[in-house]
């Protein structure tokens, strides 16, 4: 009896191993030692061992988590008969690592502005054939030929927004429209900061009146001291990214540094919240659609991007995600509802004071990183 049980166990195991082996269509066991000769000539490595070969009627999309209306994917699949493999990332750093580690796995990605700049510099992107993306002409003038892609060759803006302050009107009825409010000691344990190097440093640099992308050491030192002072004074409740908006909805704190789209999401759920971009100016950012140089289905990728730029589709996404749309057609469709919204559609006067991020060179980035670590380490 017992022997039978064990025999069964072994059979099941073998089946499972076989299944796992078949599922991956190549030998997965003991990869470490058998590949010895192949390594000296990297080019000789068979393609199949690096990428899930998804060619033909598919497009592999790699986007931020929850950053598209799911209905859009269905509509695209129905209209073109192309299967969309939709994958998600949570940070751009993650995305860039994955794109490098899995060449050919992605046809469309949605990095932020300064990452696009970095990818262009690293020859990681493919030029988009704009003849196949006529709808890109819908892009609002403000975002045409942006600083991160000056000749507008590699990217099509997908969503954009500002960084500002989300506040609770019941706790602070009439806030000073300045970053200085984040240093005001009367708001003890009432401030959520972003747990992100560039954003938190950027906010402080803007508060001090410096350039958002400065590599001037004395200026950066001043910003670091300011952040340490803020932490020591006890106004900061937490440094976080993802959790903030839900917490602001729940009324956990009075003030939070936040991206405009997240702010819009929170305001929709709690009418006591409001958002402003401080008078000193801020960061304006864009997430753009790009095609990695290694993409296997660039034509399908262009079809997909063109589809996203269709006014009705851009509108669907805009209403689902709550961020600002770069698509003039979509703006026209939404009309007053969109243009009167100061969060989604900031005044040109506000935008004039805002800057894009530029990629900090890898030689200088350690300075930013070390400073941020020091801030985080302050007790």
């Amino acid at each position: 009896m017992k022997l039978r049980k064990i025999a069964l166990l072994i059979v099941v195991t073998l089946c499972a191993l076989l299944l796992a082996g078949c599922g991956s269509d190549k030998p997965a066991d003991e990869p470490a030692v058998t590949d010895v000769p192949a390594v000296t000539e990297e080019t000789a490595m068979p393609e199949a061992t690096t990428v899930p070969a998804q060619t033909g009627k598919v497009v592999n999309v790699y986007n931020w988590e929850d950053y598209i209306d799911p209905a859009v994917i269905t509509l695209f699949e129905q209209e073109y008969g192309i299967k969309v493999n939709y994958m998600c990332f949570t940070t751009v750093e993650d995305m860039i690592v994955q794109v490098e580690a899995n060449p050919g796995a992605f046809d469309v990605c949605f990095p932020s502005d300064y990452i696009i700049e970095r990818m262009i510099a690293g020859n990681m992107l493919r030029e988009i054939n704009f003849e196949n993306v006529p709808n890109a002409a819908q892009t609002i003038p403000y975002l045409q030929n942006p600083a991160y892609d000056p000749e507008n060759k590699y990217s099509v803006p997908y969503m954009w927004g500002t960084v500002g302050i989300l506040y609770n009107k019941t706790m602070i009825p009439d806030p000073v429209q300045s970053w200085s409010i984040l240093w005001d000691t009367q708001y003890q344990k009432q401030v959520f900061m972003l747990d992100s190097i560039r954003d938190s440093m950027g906010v402080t640099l803007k508060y001090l009146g410096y350039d958002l992308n400065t590599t001037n050491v004395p200026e950066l030192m001043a910003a670091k001291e300011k952040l340490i002072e803020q932490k020591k004074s006890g106004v900061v409740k937490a440094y976080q990214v993802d959790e903030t908006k839900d917490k602001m909805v729940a009324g956990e704190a009075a003030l939070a540094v936040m991206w405009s789209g997240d702010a819009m999401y929170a305001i929709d759920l709690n009418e006591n919240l409001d958002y402003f971009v401080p008078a000193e100016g801020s960061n304006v950012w864009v997430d753009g659609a790009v095609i990695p140089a290694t993409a296997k289905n660039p034509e399908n990728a262009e079809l997909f991007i063109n589809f996203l730029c269709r006014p009705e589709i851009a509108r669907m996404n805009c209403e689902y995600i709550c961020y600002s749309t770069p698509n003039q057609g979509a703006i026209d469709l939404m009309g007053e509802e969109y243009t009167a919204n100061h969060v989604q559609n900031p005044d040109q006067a506000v935008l004039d004071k805002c800057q894009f991020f530029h990629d900090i060179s890898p030689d200088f980035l350690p300075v930013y990183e070390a400073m941020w670590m020091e801030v985080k380490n302050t007790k």
Partner: protein
Amino acid sequence: MRSDMSLPWWAWAAMGVGLVAFAAMVGVTIRRNRGIHRSLFASPYTLWMIIFTVVPVILIGYYAFTDANGAFTLDNFKNFWDSNFNANKSILAAGEAVGQDYSAYITRGTVNVDTLVYSLWMAFLCTVICLLLGYPAALIMADRKMKLGPTLVVLFIIPMWMNFLLRTIAWMSLLEDSGLINTFLKWLGFEGVQLMYNSEAVLLGMVYNFLPFMVFPIYTALSKMDFRLSEAAADLGCNSWQTLYKVTMPLSIPGIVSGITMVFMPSVTTFFIPRVLGGGNTMMFGDLIEAKFLTEGNWNVGSALSLIMMLLILVSLSILRKADPNGEGGGIA
């Protein structure tokens, strides 16, 4: 992240030699015993562990001692001591570029060392609390008069079936300013208290997650104990405290040792919990390692930090082993 993901040829050669040596050892054992000795049952596992544990650790070592171009260097360890090591180089270079002397901005960064000390302290507190909470619980469950003992032990493992991330997030909804505990306090007419975003909350999360690991081994050790010993002690005039202190405790030391190991080690490297319950106000060594690998993409320094961490854990383990020379506490069953 380095773009060329390849090892030098000698690394592959060494791995090949290792494999041949392993096969030879298996062969020799078969010949010497004229057949399949039982110890050979361990060979598939040995091979598995060599490929999936030893080789990866060697890879980490390789990274820790090389720079971004693959050349040998000790800079990554200097980076541990002085977290501003790379930044200072950039600052000086920037100063030269603008023709100014920036040496006034050069300081030693203590972030890594501070974080390590803080993590060790937190792990120590967590272990002590788990021991204080878990020992009595294990003692009660191991009591022969407690008929439900074995069932209760299972009750300790069940919470682990709920996803770790979700469990931690659930604590957040309890501890928040607008969370359940505060709502309850306010309903009773008390002032709300800030329970979250501090080290205490992180500690609570750690104790919560690691307590079962303390209870199991102690329970095992206690239930294996010969109960007649404590009866004898009672017959010889010990009161129940004396029996506990003089007989039961010393006999459960193997369980305590393995409990301490199983709680201490994961505590030092906790990540995620400080971020969720501590609101990112404090960093633990696990967060630091993660930041090096994922946010900064500096795999070399990340590997060096990992190596230091492992070394430290091995040292503390060997000290602990002194208390339990037979290694009997290894059992969790």
